[in-house]
């Protein structure tokens, strides 16, 4: 078994990976727009981790004496129709947003990776069938497909996450397939095969690690869409259910009081906007950072 380590450059790419990640981060921090994206994401993570400390009120406790209060020193972003503090609810809502991001990533990544790697590695009929299936899923806008899945599964946050994942894997599979096609003829794969490694082993040990970086980057690029879809499902009442402080659902309930109490819809919307803008700007920066044409010019 020691022989394989000589041929498969597995140990080295791991280090290179970390190195290039640091390089990319440095590049991103230098570009003002992507730096903004990084800052917003940092705030989101901090808010999610420390919200019990940061939130001045309990996000679920109602105060019927003090409903629809405009922003003040006691309630930075005002209170909603049940007297709950909107600022605290937004802070706790960041946990839901992060949960969605995390769960979608760990569901979509493996599905997309395995479909793409298997299709790309075997080629031929397997490839044709799997890519055909991928194309069918790609022929719907992601929100419509998620709507269909949630309609069948029933409205809840978990089902929304499943639905979003089911509609988000095809682009990842496409990418993993393309990556696999470029490396499947490589010498170290041929060597592993000659040593009698099974296809499953080759895919798992040699192909998947090579696809991982670009898949992770692509997942970041798609995160803005995921967040907007989740918020859209929440808004339609198909995602997180009340009284959960999900931002899209908060906008949906605030809609009825919108004309007189603008703060009910404005602040949750700004939260969604800034997080999805952050991901979009980061993605834009990442694309530039990884585009070899761009790198040389700088």
């Amino acid at each position, binding site marked *: 078994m020691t022989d394989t380590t000589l041929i498969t450059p597995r140990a080295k790419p791991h280090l290179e990976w970390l190195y290039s990640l640091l390089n990319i981060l440095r590049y991103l921090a230098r570009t003002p727009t992507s730096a903004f994206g990084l800052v917003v994401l940092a705030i989101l993570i901090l808010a999610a981790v420390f919200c019990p400390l940061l939130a001045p009120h309990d996000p679920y406790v109602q105060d019927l004496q003090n409903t629809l209060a405009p922003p003040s020193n006691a309630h930075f972003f005002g209170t909603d129709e049940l007297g709950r503090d909107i600022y605290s609810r937004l802070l706790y809502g960041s946990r839901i947003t992060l949960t969605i991001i995390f769960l979608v990533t760990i569901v979509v990544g493996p599905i997309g990776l395995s479909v793409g790697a298997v299709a790309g590695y075997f080629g031929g009929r397997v490839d044709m069938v799997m890519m055909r299936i991928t194309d069918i899923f790609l022929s719907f806008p992601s929100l419509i497909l998620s709507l269909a899945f949630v309609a069948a599964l029933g409205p809840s946050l978990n089902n929304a996450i499943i639905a979003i994942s089911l509609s988000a894997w095809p682009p990842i599979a496409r990418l993993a397939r393309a990556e696999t096609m470029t490396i499947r003829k490589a010498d170290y794969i041929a060597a592993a095969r000659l040593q009698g490694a099974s296809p499953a082993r080759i895919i798992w040990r040699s192909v998947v690690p090579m696809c991982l970086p670009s898949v992770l980057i692509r997942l970041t690029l798609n995160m803005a869409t995921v967040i907007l879809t989740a918020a859209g499902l929440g808004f339609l009442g198909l995602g997180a259910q009340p009284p959960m402080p999900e931002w899209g659902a908060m906008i949906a309930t605030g809609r009825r009081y919108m004309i007189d109490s603008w703060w009910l819809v404005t602040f949750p*919307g700004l939260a969604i*906007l800034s997080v999805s*803008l952050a991901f979009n700007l980061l993605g834009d920066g990442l694309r530039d950072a990884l585009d070899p044409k761009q790198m040389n010019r700088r």
Partner: protein
Amino acid sequence: MTIDHRRRIGHVAEQAGSIFITLFGLLILTFVIGRIMPNDPVRAIVGEDATREVYENVYRQLGFDRPMWEQFLMYLRDVVHFDFGTAIRTGQPVLNDILRVLPATIELATFAIIVGAGLGIPLGVAAAVKKDKWQDQLIRVFSLMGHSMPIFWTGMIGLLIFYASLGWVGGSGRMSQFYIGLVPERTNFLLIDSALAGEWEVFRSALNHIVLPASLLGYSSAAYITRMTRSFMLDQINQEYVTTARVKGLSTRETIWRHAFVNIRVQLVTIVALAYGALLEGAVLIETVFAWPGFGQYLTSNLLIGDMNAVMTCVLIVGVIFIALNLISDLLYRLFDPRTR
């Protein structure tokens, strides 16, 4: 028959085959989501407090007691006959319902794509010309902003500002309440119908109502168009003929619009066609906010009462529209690009 002809026919046959397979896949997908997933279509029809006999009767009538493959064949047979069943809420055939509401959405989406392309293409060209300068950065943030906004929220804020506070535009719906039913429905495109009937009051009201949702929808699609225009344009600007044109003494403006832009027109048509399809997604959400009686509202209202049959037909139709748009953009590309002939 020349070899060239034969090759072209071969290509068409191949494409027709691939479209056929994709359509078949769409049908399998909508069938699987509609029947196998854990919701109860019978319950949606008979209601919560139906007796056991009624339930069983409907269950058998819908063919749920048959094996799955037989049910799928029945579904296929219905689809081939354009029979998509009856919507629970309206009691009308689903297809009739959809054909009735679709023009409202197409009107909205068409208006929106004009805004999106009108905004995105010039911005993309400007960003390419001013690459890496502050204008480029500003355009990038501006267009990504449109792409990052939750469209249902932008719609509400837009209503709050431009309708409730400033009163510049009309509120919800396609026109003012008291004009409804005044114009004979010929095409169901309100702007066209009212113009045909010479009802300019109604036309103005309709225009007032469509401007805000369509502009917001267009703004949200502008990001994609801007980004693609910018990168197409950058490919052209770096080529030698642009330098030659500049050396010959043409102004920047002339070089860009008379030479470089002409070369990216074909690619832009493709992009705009694809962006048009993506608008359908935003339409679902913005129609809810603006009470726009279109396809999106039809879809969501059926979703909320659990009429899977109607929902899946909507999903199927969106899929077909997407395939058609892909095909159209492919055909346009072939039509306009002499190299593909």
